[in-house]
Each structure stands twice: as C-alpha cells, then as structure tokens.
C-alpha cells in the first residue's frame, strides 16, 4: 500500500559521556509526505537530526536513503545523500542581498566575477517555487522573519534536496507567516520532497503532518499515521507514564493575601492577553510545552523583554500599587535554567556570587565590609547546604545542583516576596531536584509567592498549589491542586477557541 520510505533510520544508538542520547531509535520518512518528529526535551530529536546531518556520528545502527545504506560521516556526505536542513535559528546574512544569501557558498561565476544575472534569475525561480515574489536584490536585514526563513529554505532547495528537515521552523513566526510556511511545505510535498518536521506545537502537527514519530528518552515510542491517534494520546506518548513521588509536606501561610495581579499582559505574537493572580505563599505551576511562551512570559514580567500592553498590580501591607515590569524585576527573584549563562559569575567565588545583589547591605561608605560579606555568605551556604570546599571555591567548579543552590542563595539573601523559577531543576540529578523543590516549598511556607515552570510534570505535582495552563502564549485553563496528571496532559492539547473559528 505504501511506497518504501525514502529515508529509513534503523536501531540508531548514540551515547555521550554520561548520557545515552539514543537507544535503538527508528525513523522513516516517505517522499511526498510530512513526517512530524516530536518528543519532550532531551528525547533525542536533535541528536537524531545531527546524525542525519553528518554532524554527529552514530555508535550503532543503519541509515538507508532510497534503500541504499549511507555512512553520513560529514555534513557534505549528508548533503550528497539529498538532505536539506532549515534550522530553527536563522542563518541569515543581514547586510547582504537575498540572492547572495542563497548562493553565498557556491556562486555561479563568469570568469572571475559572480554572474549576478544568473544568480538573481535562479534565486527568483527558487523563490517562486516557494510561492514568493521577493526581489533577489532586496537586503535580507530589511525582511520580516518569515521572509528570511523563505530565503533559507530557498538556500536549502538550491541543492535540490530530496529530504528537507525543518527544525522548529514556526517558533518565531506570526500566524500568517506560519500559514504561508505550511503552504510551502504542502507544495514541496506535492513536488515529491520528503519532509521531516520537528515541532512542539501539537495543533500544528495535526494540521500539517501525515505521519508522526515520537521519541522519548532516546527511543521511538510511537510511529504511524497522525490520523490514527488523538491529541491526548500524542501528548501521552511524548511524556510517557509518570513516576509519581509523594507530594512534599507543605506548610502555607494561614491567610494568604493576593500579592500580584497581572492583567491583560500582551506582547505581539508571543504573549496573548495573559491575566492571573498570585497569592503570598503560593506555588503556582506554569504548565505548558516548550515554546508555549512560558519563558517569554516570565521574561516579560520582569522587564527583560518589552510588553505591548498590560498592567501589573503589587499588593503589600494592605496597599496595592501599579508597577511596571522593570520594577517587578527589582522586587522579584528570577532563576533560570541557564544558570551558567544568565545566573552566575562563573569566574568568581561562591561567596562573591551569593552576596553580589546585596552588596549595599553589607557595605559602609561604599566599601564592602569583607568580614560581613563572609559571614553573610557562610550563613547562606549553611542554610542551603551548598556543597563547597569553602566559600572561596570558584562557582564554575561546583556541581549543577550546587550551582543552582548558589543562585537561590543569592535571591534568598534579599528575601524576595516573589520568585519566578524557569526550569530550576533542569539537568540536575534526582536528589538535587528534590532538594531544590524542598527549598521552593520552604520559601512558600515563609510567605514567598512562587511561579514555577517545569517541563517535568511529576516535578510540578510535588509542589504546586495550582496550575496555569499555557498554550501559544495564552493561559487556556487553570487547574486546582487536585488535578490529575491525565487532566494536566489533556489540557495541553486544548486549542485556542479563536483559532478554530478562524
């Protein structure tokens, strides 16, 4: 019934030091069909695609292209085998023209010079194949994100690939641009190209894909036609059966008052009319898939990204004031998953890192009192049980869990009323995770409101008092503490009612 797949990856295994990224993973893609590749973070999608791109070599397994085994030792071999990639991250050259962007690594030449005429003509043809009449002479830096992406697709098409891999291509597109991209994918499909489409957006998969392959922990757990399963089933495949650990013992303030009220926060194309409240001493889970706008919402709240509209009200000691995001950023603690990049001064010591935001409190006449600094840091190291040889140890040399504790220690010293935690346990081992969650719990007990983002449901269900479900930048549901994992998973496949109407 079905033609033999153009690409078949069989029993692919790959281990990196300390991690098994792929464990006998399978993947098949047909010509003239869109195959969605999905999986939670760390499921092995990128490793699988890097193997396909010749960037990473496989430990075991075979890859067949049109029934013939291929080695894929280098990116060049991958290109020769007919693969084309459109990366999530745009590889644009903004000061250069559309045609130059398309042909930069292999210009058509006449004698020594670039044959601009041929270059523009062929660019126009490639773009027309994508249904676009962009001027090849236009400067790419002046184009919209969607048009820049078309230029990159045109660059990939230049080699006439028989398989095109789109790695989360819609992450930064507007709805209109997304629709156009899907039209492009459909027309490429009609031209007989096999398409692998990586996405976190469940609704998109049902809109565009014919087949779907689900990876979880390096294994292929589902592979088949999209039509054969429901959205809820797909999400369940992605997340797997959950190992529940008992809820952590809780102590919450007796009469919590509303601390923060956010009304109609908007950021064009990213955050869509978000309203919610947080009470003192409450842990609220912001539950959504990657790319749903979780991080973006947090960044907008603390003023790291601009907002287009919305109000933030802060209540303390019976008084409510309206504040801007920058002010909220000063009042709230913000811990990100990227502790090395955003959170810590890696070259400095543990002690220096801990006291950094509170230098004024331990200074006199503008000079830091070293004795006070050491006492303050020592208190925090003890309180959080940070494992370090001394407070002079460089923070870069701590383990991940202890680094994250150092980030927490920094905020605790200032006793913030609100903590925003974005994947605070990413990359930590089980014990370190539990310690961080216990800390979150303890802080809530002392009256701090916590907004917690995690991709791991079993983690959220251990500490959260409430859940806000975020899909495509909108809060689509609010679930109580008693919500089951099943309910939470189902909630992710909710679709924005307005999109159905559209």
């Amino acid at each position: 019934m079905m033609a033999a797949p153009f690409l078949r990856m069989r029993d692919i295994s790959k281990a990196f030091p300390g991690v098994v990224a792929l464990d006998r993973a399978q993947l098949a893609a047909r010509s003239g069909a869109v195959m969605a590749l999905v999986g939670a973070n760390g499921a092995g999608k990128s490793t699988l695609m890097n193997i396909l791109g010749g960037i990473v070599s496989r430990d075991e397994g075979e890859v067949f292209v049109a029934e013939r085994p291929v080695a894929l030792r280098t990116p060049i071999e991958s290109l020769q085998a007919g693969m084309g990639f459109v990366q999530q991250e745009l590889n644009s050259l903004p000061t250069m023209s559309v045609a130059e962007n398309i042909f930069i690594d292999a210009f058509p030449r006449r004698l020594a010079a670039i044959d601009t005429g041929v270059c523009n003509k062929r660019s126009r043809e490639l773009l027309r194949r994508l249904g676009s009449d962009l001027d090849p002479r236009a400067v790419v830096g002046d184009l919209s994100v969607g048009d820049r992406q078309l230029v990159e697709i045109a660059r990939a098409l230049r080699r006439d690939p028989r398989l095109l891999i789109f790695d989360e291509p819609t992450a930064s597109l507007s709805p209109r641009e997304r629709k156009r991209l899907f039209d492009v994918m459909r027309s490429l499909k009609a031209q007989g190209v096999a398409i692998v489409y990586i996405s976190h957006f469940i609704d998109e998969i049902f809109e565009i894909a014919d087949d779907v392959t689900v990876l979880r922990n390096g294994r292929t757990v589902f592979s088949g036609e999209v039509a054969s399963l429901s959205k809820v089933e797909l999400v369940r495949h992605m997340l797997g059966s959950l190992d529940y650990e008992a809820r952590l013992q809780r102590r919450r303030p007796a009469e919590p008052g509303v601390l923060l009220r956010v009304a109609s926060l908007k950021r064009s194309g990213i955050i869509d009319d978000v309203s919610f409240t947080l009470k003192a001493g409450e842990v609220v889970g912001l539950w959504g898939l990657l790319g749903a706008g979780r991080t973006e919402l947090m960044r907008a709240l603390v003023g790291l990204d601009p907002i287009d509209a919305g109000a933030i009200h802060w209540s303390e000691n019976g008084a409510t004031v309206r504040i801007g995001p920058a002010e909220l950023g000063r009042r709230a603690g913000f811990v990100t998953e990227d502790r090395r990049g955003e959170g810590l001064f890696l070259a400095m010591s543990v002690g220096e890192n801990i006291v950094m935001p509170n230098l004024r409190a331990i200074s006199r006449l503008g000079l830091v009192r070293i004795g006070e600094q050491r006492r303050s840091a020592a208190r925090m190291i003890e309180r959080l049980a940070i494992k370090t040889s001394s407070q002079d140890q460089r923070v870069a040399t701590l383990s991940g869990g202890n680094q994250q504790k150092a980030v927490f220690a920094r905020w605790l010293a200032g006793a913030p009323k609100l903590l925003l935690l974005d994947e605070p346990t990413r990359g930590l081992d089980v014990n370190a995770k539990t310690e961080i969650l216990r800390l979150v719990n303890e802080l809530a007990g002392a009256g701090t409101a916590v907004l917690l983002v995690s991709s791991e449901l079993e983690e959220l269900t251990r500490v959260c008092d409430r859940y806000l479900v975020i899909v495509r930048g909108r809060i689509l549901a609010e679930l109580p503490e008693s919500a089951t994992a099943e309910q939470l998973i189902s909630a992710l496949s909710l679709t924005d009612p307005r999109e159905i109407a559209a």
Partner: protein
Amino acid sequence: MKRLLEAVRNSGAGLVLLATYVVFSVAAPSFFGPQNLLEILHVVSPMIVVAAGMAIVVMSGKLDISVGSTAYVASAIFAVIVRDGLLPFPAAVAVSIFVGLMLGLVNAIIVVGLKINSLIATLGTMIAFRGLGLSITDGGLIILPDAVKDLGNLAVGPIYLDTALALAILLVVQFVHRSTSFGRQITAIGNNEDVARRIGIPVDRRTVATLLLSGAFAATGGVIYTLQVGVNTAKIGDGMEFTAVAAVVVGGVSLFGGRGNILTSVILGSMIFQIVRSGLQQVGANPYSYRLVEGVVIFIAMYADALKVGTGSAGTRLFKKS
C-alpha cells in the same frame, strides 16, 4: 565617480571631507586649487593602499593593527637591498612585498591556527615586527640612491604615478569585494562568523587570505612611502595602523564587519586625514597638534555619520545598491 559623489553627499564622512577642505581653503590661500589637490592625492597614496588591505580585514570582522610595522619591515628590507644594490629595482619591490605576505602569514597562523583574537594577535605582531625591522636597520637612517628616489615622485602629466597605482589597487579591491565569491564570502564572515561556518563557507581559508592580503598591501604602502621620502627611518609606519583603521571606519565600513563600501570608505577616510594634515602644515600649525586634531576629526566624522544615517546603521546606505 557618480557613486563617489553620491557617497560624499550621503555620508557624514563626505560632509566632513568637504568641510575640512573648505576650512583650510579659507585659512590658507595656497591650499585651494587643483595643484595642491594633486599633491595631496600623491602624499595620501601609501595610506590608500594600506587602508585598502585593512578594509578587507575589517570587512571580515577582524582587525590587523600590525600593518604599520609590516610597512616598516618591508621598507627597511627594500631600502637595504636598494642601497647595497643587492637586486635590481623590480626584484627589490617584489621581495619587499613578499616579506609583507610572509608577515601576513605569521598573523594568519596566530589568528586562525592558534585561534587568538585578531586584535590581540596583531597587537603582539605589531610590536614584534617593529622589533624585527629595527634589528635590520639598527634603528638608523637608510638613504636611497638618487636614481631610485626620483621614482617616488614620478608623474605622468599632472598625475603622480603612485596616485594612479594606489587608485588602481583600490579599484581592484573594490571589484574583488563587490563582485567575486571571495569578496562576498568575507562580507558574509563579517556578518556573522558562526553563521558563515554553518552555511559552509571556508571561514579559515578566507581569513588566512585576508591577512595575507593585508600584509602584502601594507608592504606595498611601505615601499611607496619610502620611495616618496627617499629614506627609511625608524618612524616609518608608526601610527599608520590606527590611521588606517580610522580611515576605513570613518569612511563608513562597520568596525564589526559585513557592512560598507570599500572604495568610498577608503577614499573618503584617507583623504580626510590627509587634508587635515596638509592643511595644518600650510597654515603653519604646530606639528605636535596634528594628532590632536585628527582625533577630534574622528569623533566629528563618526558623529556626523550617526546623525545622517541613524545610529547603529552607519554605512547601510552606502552599501545598498542604488
């Protein structure tokens, strides 16, 4: 020519160039007129050649501040060969330029092979090459024989030979930048080196080439200058690297690479500095004030460009095809 006039009108550098020219024409009656302009074009030609090489490196997002010392080493070797009559004149020139190429190769090995930031790497070689040159000359003067000296000030009709040569070199560089794969790819590298690498541009090979060219052009500039003044001194090329960078950037090439028109930038930038220098000479200003004024001119030109083009995009308008 039309595009050059366009650039003069559109860029801050063009306005500053006109302004300085007008100011000195008013201040010193002898300044205005074609004769002095040709004289300025003569004196500026070594800088145009050095800046053309610098522009290639800056376009790719790197810096080569060893060019002044490279020019000095080439000048020293050239002067020794000519003084002692070791080789005929054309061979002396070829050897000197080859030496520049080799010094460029040293830079390339450090920048590409050892992956050291180009600013730091060439800061090191700037000092080292100067030391190399001084040990060749013992820091003394080497006076060229009279027969050779005259070559430096040879003119065909009203145009000096070195002016024509410098402009020809600059036009070739402009053509290479605008119309060849190499030129486009170094611009791509200047846009974003990581992206260029991902797209499949041979970034390392291209970078090596830019540094080789920069070395060869610096040596050429050094030889032209030596012929003009007829003597090699330990001060040759001193400060030339900064004037070259300033000329390129003031003219409109982005210091971060990837943007700008090399032809107009190098001409405008080099001319601004030479006009200021010649003008100050003719009004009889204290020679020690030259650098002070040049520094001020850099700020005025950059500020004028920011006002004219809009902050952050200096050079974009020069780049677009009209």
